[in-house]
């Protein structure tokens, strides 16, 4: 069989694209953006309904919108984009051909088929069971089958990625170890395989139950295994967006990791411990002992938290060192002041980093503490937390990467560059405020997934305090800002990819496989390392980052103990 080796070199970045891989990346990115568009419209409906003054949708439509919003954003948008990242991190970064592009297309179309099937089940009105679809509440069989097909497609993508690593190694397209970003992508891929296996273990029996072949699904068993899928899938996102942070730091600043050992060690901690941490979803459940809960949320979760705290330091640290070496070496923060804040690739990435750490990270660890979970569980604090992690963190990081990919991958000029400069601020800050106000409302007890906190017409209503209503109104306003930011992103991306003038690539033409095989590109020679840059203060190469990290730690400690204080005032329970 002829080996298809068609490569082009990007004139502005020197990146090497394998044409079949490039087509796949484009297809996945387009599918991701379409999912984001659908999910974004749904988000608008949800947020305008939870704003009690507007209360847009009827309850059946609200619960339908919320279910579809969860699936389209959390699964479709993110995983389509992640498969594109996997192909980029393997084929492009390792300068090698993609393994079995034909099989990769099978995976892609399975994902599309699954996505359509699942969305059909939801929009037919028979499957408003929320993203979590907790048994014994049942959905239409197509709901589960759609998710299963989508997962099989994604799994094929994972194995194509792993196969590409094998190809690169066998054909010696790189020297030494794989790049850190690819290492991060391997982490994401390994977690994805674990995640999809957990998903299969729970969704296949649930599908059989929905068609009547299995008699009973235990609710606690469902939640325990489902979260092995539901939470781990978020860890794919963490590993993927941390890789994107490193990639953007390298692309924008030429930053190199402070030390490969620490960054890779932190990724390794993700692989070893993140998945087990999904037990923190079950802290308020009966039938599981405190020992089990503490064991799974402590050693497992905290070692993963440690890894995130390490990445949170090493990414800005690497940027700081790179900036200082360029001459921005004065004071603690000259490197940060002189950073390209008008470049959406950088601005988005940095807001993603700060938002993920300060809002998503701190709130997540607090909720994941066995006792503190009692005052948080299933309140709107929870979506507040995960909009900070998965939207400010993952989605914004992916958006930033898109601004880099439009000229490089899609070979189009970016339309509306002025608007693009503002987009990360509007979306990132809007979404951060949205998350923060939701957490505020959650602290006051406002439930998540709830159509009407006024309990209108109810014989025994609960009157939430005025502050909770205010928080929900502010949540909606911030949500609208974020939706506008998301719409601008879609306008720029779709406009640029389909309507903008092409960027010419010299010496590039499409070659069919039958016309012959180009030789594999030569590997890049490794440069000589200079490890002890003469920069920094007081013996520290990145003192500004260390100060920022300390600010983070102090906020973390204060917030953590404030919540213990709050817990100590509620009714004694044992």
């Amino acid at each position: 069989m002829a080996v298809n080796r068609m490569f082009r070199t990007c004139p502005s970045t020197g990146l090497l694209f394998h044409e079949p891989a490039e087509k796949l990346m484009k297809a996945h990115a387009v599918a991701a953006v379409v999912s984001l568009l659908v999910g974004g419209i749904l988000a608008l409906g949800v947020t305008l309904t939870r704003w009690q003054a507007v209360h847009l949708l009827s309850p059946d439509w609200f619960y339908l919108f919320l279910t579809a919003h969860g699936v389209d954003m959390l699964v479709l948008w993110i995983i389509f984009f992640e498969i594109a990242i996997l192909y980029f991190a393997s084929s492009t970064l390792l300068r090698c051909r993609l393994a079995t592009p034909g099989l990769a297309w099978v995976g892609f179309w399975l994902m599309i088929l699954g996505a359509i099937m699942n969305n059909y089940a939801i929009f037919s009105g028979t499957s408003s069971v929320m993203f979590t679809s907790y048994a014994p509440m049942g959905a239409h069989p197509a709901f589960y089958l759609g998710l299963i097909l989508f997962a099989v497609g994604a799994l094929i993508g994972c194995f194509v990625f792993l196969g590409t690593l094998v190809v690169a190694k066998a054909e010696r397209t790189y020297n030494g170890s794989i790049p850190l970003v690819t290492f991060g992508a391997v982490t994401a891929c390994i977690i994805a395989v674990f995640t999809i296996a957990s998903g299969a273990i729970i969704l296949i029996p649930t599908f059989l139950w929905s068609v009547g072949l299995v008699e009973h699904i235990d609710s606690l068993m469902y939640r325990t295994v489902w979260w092995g899928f539901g939470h781990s899938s978020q860890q794919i996102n963490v590993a993927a967006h941390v890789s994107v942070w490193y990639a953007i730091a390298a692309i924008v600043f030429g930053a190199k990791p402070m030390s490969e050992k620490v960054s890779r060690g932190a990724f390794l901690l993700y692989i070893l411990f993140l998945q087990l941490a999904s037990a923190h979803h079950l802290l308020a459940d009966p039938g599981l002992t405190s020992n089990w809960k503490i064991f799974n949320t402590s050693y497992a979760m905290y070692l993963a938290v440690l890894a995130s705290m390490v990445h949170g330091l090493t990414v800005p640290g690497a940027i700081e060192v790179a900036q200082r070496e360029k001459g921005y070496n004065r004071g603690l923060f000259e490197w940060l002041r002189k950073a390209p804040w008008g470049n959406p690739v950088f601005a988005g990435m940095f807001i993603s980093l700060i938002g993920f750490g300060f809002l998503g990270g701190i709130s997540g660890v607090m909720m994941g503490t066995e006792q503190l979970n009692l005052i948080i569980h299933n309140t709107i604090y929870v979506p507040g937390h995960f909009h900070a992690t998965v939207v400010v963190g993952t989605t914004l990081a992916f958006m930033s990467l898109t601004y880099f990919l439009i000229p490089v991958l899609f070979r189009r000029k970016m339309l509306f560059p002025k608007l693009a400069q503002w987009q990360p601020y509007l979306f990132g800050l809007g979404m951060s405020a949205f998350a923060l106000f939701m957490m505020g409302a959650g602290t006051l007890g406002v439930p998540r997934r709830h159509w009407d906190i006024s309990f209108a017409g109810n014989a025994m209503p609960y009157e939430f305090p005025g502050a909770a209503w205010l928080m929900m109104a502010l949540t909606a306003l911030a949500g609208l800002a974020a939706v506008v930011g998301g719409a601008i992103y879609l306008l720029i991306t779709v406009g640029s990819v389909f309507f903008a003038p092409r960027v010419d690539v010299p010496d590039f033409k499409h070659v069919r496989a039958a016309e012959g095989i180009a030789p594999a590109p030569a590997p890049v020679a490794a440069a000589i390392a200079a490890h002890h840059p003469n920069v920094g203060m007081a013996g520290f190469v990145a003192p500004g980052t260390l100060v920022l990290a300390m600010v983070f730690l102090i906020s973390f400690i204060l917030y953590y103990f404030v919540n213990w204080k709050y817990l100590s005032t509620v009714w004694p329970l044992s």
Partner: protein
Amino acid sequence: MSAILPPEDRVWWKQPLDRVEGTWVVIALIWCLIMFFMMPYWHVFGKQNLANEAYRTTPEVYMKKAQDMVDKFTVRTETDQKIPVVAPPAGSDVYLVARLWSWWPILELEAGKSYRIHLMSMDWLHGFSLQPENINIQVHPGYDHVLTVQPTRAGTYSIICNEYCGINHHTMSSKLYVK
């Protein structure tokens, strides 16, 4: 562009740890250990811990126990649906039934006394959310969860459902009185 290129040193794992990183790893690890110790610490010295006591049972058995309690300790009924208000003695077993879409019966407890409150669902998952205390517990079908609770302040509290349980989820709310 090193993070997207292979490491410059082939033997990158021998590169010495940077001081900034080393300091931070140690501090972060200590903080993670403190967070770990807070959980067992609270089990010993704190007063708010979720019970480990739970039993597998069936809706019929659970409902019968709840009905017996209601027959014995009902003090009055409330609303058009004549929902019983139950005032069980301190220290006794108190059964709260969660079902689509109501909590049953209404409980009347005394401040400063402790009660063994049982929570179970008759059908789907529900969420016990006591407001404005903001105590939130998952309620499963088939698992009788026993909490020892000691109300501290007199007043009228609300129990709302905070686990999505279908189209009328938002109508599932009840009262809890503390005298």
